[in-house]
């Protein structure tokens, strides 16, 4: 039994990092996982982006898996990421329900004690 590994990849050219981090923390807290650390990882260069297959800021990895798996044709590079809310709206951060669902699934898989 262990806690989920949550990592937020960000790029400074995109202003959504704080809002994304707040959304992740809110989802964790809502699931009783408020103590889980969110590791922040800055992607600075095109080479960094290539190395981690970065398709835009923010990218949230849960146990190394992209919360919203990128479509195969998403270009790798330093940009802001386009997400879709469940109601179809474009957003620079994931839908809170997607976030909660992904974290909840991981927590259940890991049988995390909350």
């Amino acid at each position, binding site marked *: 039994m262990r806690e989920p590994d949550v990592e937020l990849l960000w790029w400074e*050219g*995109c*202003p*959504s990092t704080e809002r994304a981090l707040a959304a992740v923390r809110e989802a964790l807290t809502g699931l009783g996982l408020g103590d889980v650390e969110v590791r922040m990882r800055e992607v600075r260069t095109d080479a960094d982006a290539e190395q981690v297959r970065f398709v835009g800021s923010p990218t949230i990895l849960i146990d190394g898996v992209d919360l919203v798996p990128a479509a195969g044709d998403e*270009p790798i*590079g330093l*940009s*802001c*990421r*386009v*997400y879709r809310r469940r109601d179809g*709206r*474009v*957003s*620079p951060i994931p839908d809170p329900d997607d976030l909660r669902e992904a974290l909840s699934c991981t927590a259940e898989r890991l049988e995390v004690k909350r």
Partner: protein
Amino acid sequence: MSISIGAVAPDFELPDTVGGTWSANDSGAAATVVVFTCNHCPYALAWQDRLADAARDYAGRGVRFLAINANDADRYPRDSFQAMKARVDRENWSMPYLHDATQEVAHAYDAKVTPDVFVLDSERRLRYRGAPDGDYDDPGQNAQWLREALDAVLGGSEPTRAETKPVGCSIKWKQ
């Protein structure tokens, strides 16, 4: 250097996606809204419908909207001129979509992000610069800051909120 509120904004001549050419000068326009935008930024996309609605709503009052994409298409192919044309063909645009391939216009306006909104009066003086409204995530805001500025300009007064902080993706400058 930023254009000061009240200063005359730089003129330009840029091509749109359907073979036309547009200038900031138009003696017939009561006001001109210049919006730096692009294809790939979630902020620009989130605000697009609100800007398009404002363009439709104010067209009858002599206001014209000019959208400009200045991003470096070599590094961001989704902002290429071809991609701009494809987007206009696919979507219901209510304003011309201009290509600033050299980025000279974006530099002259000191545009920072997409979207970055500039409201010019009939003498091309800058009356408002900033975000369309206070929250990309709330369509109900309906480009309120921009609309307030336009209402003031059309009514012959100064916008009470002449500058706000533009919020969005950084302009992708050529390196």
